[in-house]
């Protein structure tokens, strides 16, 4: 390789920061969004999640025989699929800073780490909203396919149903963030998320089946159980059920998220 002389004109100034403004949050959000899709893994994962949604939609639309073809039913199925897999996106957004050690550059270019955390949360939310819109479209396509098969699906969608779909997906994404910041490791964070979303509710359901008092307690302390009213019945949790969502949410979301942010703000970037 040939040497190229460093040829910026003039001499370098001393450190004069008067003309420099801090990095605006919008720019940080833009960079974090870009980081979500500028690797093969990042792009492939988002497409895979949408692909899974499409497969679920097609299975229901083409194979299910009766009684689950309403627009709201498709939306519930989409929400369940997203709840399982979408949180991996924010997990990757956070843990790459440690696993790939990009945090060395990220936090050198913006040493006010709370702004990087905020940018990641906002970028994660933007991606989540985008995926949810696509999921809504897929649900509509599914409903249309069902009516082509001769069923008579109900296109009606109450606001509470849409709200439940959005809320449950957002909760899942924020839990992904919390776990990622707490453990700062991609594999461990993904495993922990599936422990939370699959194993914990299974164990709780098992115990609830045998222990009466535990069955009463479970929705107050187990977040997946507490969120059930968001997916079933009339999609309108009662006051007591909202209380359960709140208490379980403090245990499984608010506390881990606060601890995770606290850890990330203080951690030594290795």
């Amino acid at each position: 390789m040939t040497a190229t002389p460093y040829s910026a004109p003039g001499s370098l100034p001393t450190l004069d920061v008067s003309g420099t403004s801090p990095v605006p949050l919008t720019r940080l959000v833009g960079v974090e969004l870009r980081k979500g899709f500028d690797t093969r893994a990042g792009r492939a994962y988002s497409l895979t999640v949408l692909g899974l949604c499409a497969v679920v939609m097609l299975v229901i639309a083409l194979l299910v025989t009766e009684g689950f073809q309403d627009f709201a039913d498709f939306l519930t199925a989409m929400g369940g699929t997203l709840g399982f897999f979408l949180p991996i996106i924010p997990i990757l957004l956070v843990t790459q800073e440690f696993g790939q050690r990009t945090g060395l550059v990220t936090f050198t270019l913006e040493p006010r780490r709370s702004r990087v955390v905020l940018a990641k949360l906002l970028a994660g939310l933007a991606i989540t909203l985008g995926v949810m819109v696509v999921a809504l479209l897929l649900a509509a396509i599914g409903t249309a396919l069902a009516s082509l098969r001769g069923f008579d699906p109900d296109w009606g969608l109450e606001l509470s149903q849409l709200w439940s779909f959005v809320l449950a997906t957002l909760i899942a994404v924020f839990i992904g963030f919390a776990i990622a910041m707490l453990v700062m490791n991609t594999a461990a964070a993904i495993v922990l998320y599936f422990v939370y979303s699959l194993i914990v509710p299974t164990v709780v359901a098992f115990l609830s089946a045998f222990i009466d008092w535990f069955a009463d307690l479970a929705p107050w302390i187990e977040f997946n159980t507490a969120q059930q009213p968001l997916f079933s019945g009339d999609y309108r949790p009662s006051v007591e059920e909202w209380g359960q969502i709140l208490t379980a949410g403090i245990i499984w979301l608010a506390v881990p998220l606060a601890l995770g942010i606290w850890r990330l703000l203080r951690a030594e970037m290795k």
Partner: protein
Amino acid sequence: MGPMISVENLTRAYGSFVAVDDVSFVAQPGRVTGFLGPNGAGKTTTMRVMVGLTPATSGRVTIGGRLYRDIPNPGRHVGTLLDASAQHKGRTGREILTLGATTMGLPKSRVDEMLHLVSLSDAEAGRRLRNYSLGMMQRLGIAHALLGDPSVMILDEPANGLDPAGIRWMRDLLKGYAGRGGTVLLSSHLLHEVEVIADEMVLIGRGRIVAQGDKRSLLAGDGTQAAVTLVTSLDDRKLGEALQRAGHTVTMAPPGEPGIRIEADAETVGRAALDQQVVLTGMRSGAAGLEDMFLRLTSDTQREGMPPGPPPPPPAPTQASPAGAPGAPR
């Protein structure tokens, strides 16, 4: 003009282990300051504290009079390269620079300028980092540090992995940069690397500063310098005996070198040779250089210590060795 980087009584402890112990030094604008020490001496930790990646236990570092976190858009003022491999292996070189330029609010054209500056071709810039050689990664890291046209550069082992031409290129680049008023702090565990590029040197061993200054003042401040001359001639014995009679200590030259070692200056040795009619075939100073000084000052921190001689040779494997002897081939 005051110092640009000022490290003030910096200490960083991990439990009972003190990685950086009450370190103070400065780096001046227009100068390349070499930060030199064996592996694990605390160079990297000090640099990480400088840019806020590691919190200080006590003491502080200011750059241009400010704490790093108080510098707005710091990439525009301080170019940092701590570890060129600390990037996503699945991103291309160009993408890595684009992310940096976007964060700093620079036009995309800046990315091409920097790629050109560090001689990474378009094809190379389009490759993913996992396919980069160490030298290419290092060039990319230097390009990243220069993106924001900073007035200060903090580089940890920047020559690591560069080939000799690359090292020469980086030296010219950093010298030119300092020549235009920039401040460069670069670390290395290799003395020769720092010796040729640095105007000032800061020597660190086991977390403590053991010496600092420019090369001449470092050697002058080292009070153990007696004149020593190494000489080869057509009659070493005759010359040596004459010098010994004159009261100088004469020994064999260090192992692996021909001739004799005389604790006297070159003129004395030359005059003795003239008197004795001995033809000199070679003569040079045998004084301890910067390297000896570096090794001595940091010797208690070197992992190897300073063995008095070469290690014993391994037992020669022979057919005759008794069966079962350790190391004997079967």
